[in-house]
């Protein structure tokens, strides 16, 4: 039976769960981890970003069959790193969210960026965040909040 670890909890996947099920729907519909959002289903918006083995991926296009046995999945609910805490504190301090629907994905991507790069330039932020859409266009504040978080981590 395939096994995943989601936010450090073991999840056994029964054989009747189709392997083509995207990780997104396992998280949302089966595990009720609804912080991860469905926005497009074609890996174009980033609302569904989670970490697989610590790396940000689009869960809407990550079939369960593509995950290795025992894969470690981290969702916004299980995001506890110091980079994540700094990002979330900056998001609140600068009141980044508007509608908020994309922000789980934005936070996941921003925390992943800071985990690799504690001093991101504007170009680094563009490269890391361009795949996360925000229809409210909170981009000005996302950029400022990433810099704010970087400052707090320094």
């Amino acid at each position, binding site marked *: 039976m395939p096994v995943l670890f989601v936010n450090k909890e073991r999840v056994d996947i029964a054989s009747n769960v189709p392997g083509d099920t995207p990780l997104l729907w396992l998280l949302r519909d089966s595990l*009720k981890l609804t912080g991860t959002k469905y926005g497009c289903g074609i890996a*174009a918006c980033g609302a569904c970003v989670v970490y697989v083995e610590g790396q940000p991926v689009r869960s809407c296009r990550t079939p369960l069959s593509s995950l290795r046995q025992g894969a470690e999945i981290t969702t916004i609910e299980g995001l506890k790193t110091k980079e994540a805490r700094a990002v979330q504190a900056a998001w609140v301090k600068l009141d980044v969210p508007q509608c908020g*629907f994309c922000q789980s994905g934005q936070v996941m991507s921003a925390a992943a960026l800071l985990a690799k790069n504690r001093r991101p330039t504007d170009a680094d932020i563009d490269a890391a965040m361009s795949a*996360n859409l925000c229809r409210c*266009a909170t981009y000005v504040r996302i950029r400022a909040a990433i810099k704010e978080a970087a400052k707090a981590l320094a």
Partner: protein
Amino acid sequence: MSESRVVNLSRSRRAFLKAGGAAGAGLLLGVHVPVLAQQGGPGKAGTATQAAPFEPNAFVRIGRDNTVTVVAKHLEMGQGVYTGLATIVADELDASWGQVRVVSAPADASRYNNLFWGPAQGTGGSTAIANSWEQLRNAGASARAMLVGAAAKRWNVPADGIRVSAGVVSHASGRKATFGELAQAASAMPVPASVTLKDPKDFVFVGKHVPRTDSAAKSKGTALFTQDVELPGMLTALVLHPPRFGARVKSFDASGLKAIPGVRTVVELPTGVAVLATGFWAAKKGRDALKVEWNDSRSWRGSTDELMAEYRKLAAAPGKVARADGDAAKALAGAAKVLEATFEFPYLAHAAMEPLNCVMRLTEGRCEAWYGAQSQTADQAAIAQVTGLTPEQVTIETLFAGGSFGRRANPQSDYVVECAEIVSRLAKTGTRGVPVKLVWTREDDMRAGHYRPAYLHTMRAGLDASGAIVGWQHRIVGQSIADGTAFEKVLVKNGVDATSVEGASTLPYAIPAVTVDLHSPYGAVPVQWWRSVGSTHTAFSTETFLDELAAAAGQDPLAMRRALLAKHPRHLAALELAAREAGWGTPLAPGKAGTKRARGLAVHESFGTVVAEVVEVTVKPDRSFSVDRVVCAVECGVVVNPDVVRAQMEGGIGFGLSAALYSAITVKDGVVEQSNFNDYPMLRIDEMPAVDVHIVRSQGKPSGVGEPATPVIAPALANALYAATGQRLPEASCRSPRGAATPTPKRAELASPEGARGRSSGAGAVFGRA
């Protein structure tokens, strides 16, 4: 049916236990309480239906635990309205911000109607703060007076010796009490017939920085959207919609669905065929396996190219008169110079990040709905009609909406009706009471219609020998949004839909002869309001054409506007502030060798708010360009929350830039050609300019800020591109370099003249020009 909700998946026992004991049930959200609990202020639970000891009016509740609950009658869809509404109450109440939380009001027009909309509850037209301002000041002041009265009685002191500050009621004698301690006693006090409102100089929250109430939940993924609602036994419904507008189901074959685990049933609807399953993925696979034959006898099989050709023909003759000042035809006949221009605007999808959805449960004599409701009263009536109930038997719990931009205020309540059709038909087949979550996929959201209408504008204006504008003729062709809806009576006068001409018929410039007329041809493509409505197109045509006239007259665009706006002090204030902060008239720092840098400006009033924007662009030798900075000034009366105003200006500019650079819905043989974010791209962070927002100091009544920044950016950008290149559209038309095949973002580029010529509407820019 709830037993059958086997997840086709089991979590380990350990995970179940950790999740809270009882297996499945521990993972399900309880219905009412948690839904609202998660929407409140930081970490504070509560519900709108929970009784508080002190409820002086429909908007304020004070509990023994000292929490002040503000009941928000408006949808929070990102515009910060929960924060704004609570700010108004908290100020008059003299609460401490930390004790304030916000819950959504139930659908009940008798208490929660939009005061600008008569007897209807709803959010739109940037009216939320404007219509609530006095109502909520009174609600807060009234509650405060009753708390003071209760303290005076308890302490046996005169009420005028009592102070209230930061949630504490006190007297010179040293006596003190919290709101919570006085709540019970205050409830016994008479509701004052009238109250004295604060002198604005005494405001403690209004006009100051107050943090949003929803930032923390939205940064942690705990804010609850319709997509996240989970009810026991709930089924997820996906609908297979027809590829063409107006088509009906002829027949369908669902035999392929039996083999798909999790699929429960299939329901035929007026709008398509719904597949109901235990979750999204099963419903999606079921929908993919469904075979439907469509009856296209009533379908529209045209194209947007043909439509625009038809609009061009219509524009040759005068339409219904929207404005007629003086004799513009005569003025143009005698003009020294006449300029003409034609503008084409494509259909636009709202494309909010949360695709449309709705959760509903129909039981005997009751229908409950949970979703991001924007027109509660109209939706209630529509649900009642489908389900055979009275509107009072329909309850709506309004949740956060993951954006809307007008889409959730659909005049036909389309997606809500579709969900009601599903639960209604389930009930007829013996499965009453099953909660259904209708989910539109992104493709449904993009293709199933209700777009900003496509429009064609033709304009003519004349200059006299001195360069003064002597006449202005503006003709608009495009579908009416209000026609055939409940809004027709209010919005359509003498055959003119106000939403088609607003911004054009209200042209503020002092021009002696102005005519504006309108053709509203019937169209099969469903249309509706889109953030800033008529101004999405009229601001572009009027503000770029005025720029063109200024150039032809050899005048500075700012100087010409300034002269023509002498009688519009609010326009002037915004314009002057933006121009000053942008350094209008001073040289821009040069870019790299070979690049051209320039500024452009535009000013426009919508929904009672005036916004001026100055755009700085850099055009490279290869004709690609970047939007470097936008300086924005806004005149919106008294500012309740300046940071929310700034956020709406920033976001409105980004939203407008998406349309200017990328967005277009096109139709061929009746089928919408776009489907998702790959072929309906939008602005990403690497193209977002720096935005500096400046707020005009004003003592006027508050006016809205959700929409007015959006329409100004495209004309300001086009004017900046003209200033940089000396080319008007189409020569300076923008085109979208991004498509399915270009995942790597590139800068927007200027189209070559050959590439842009002969192109019809919807080739990727809001401002195609023929």
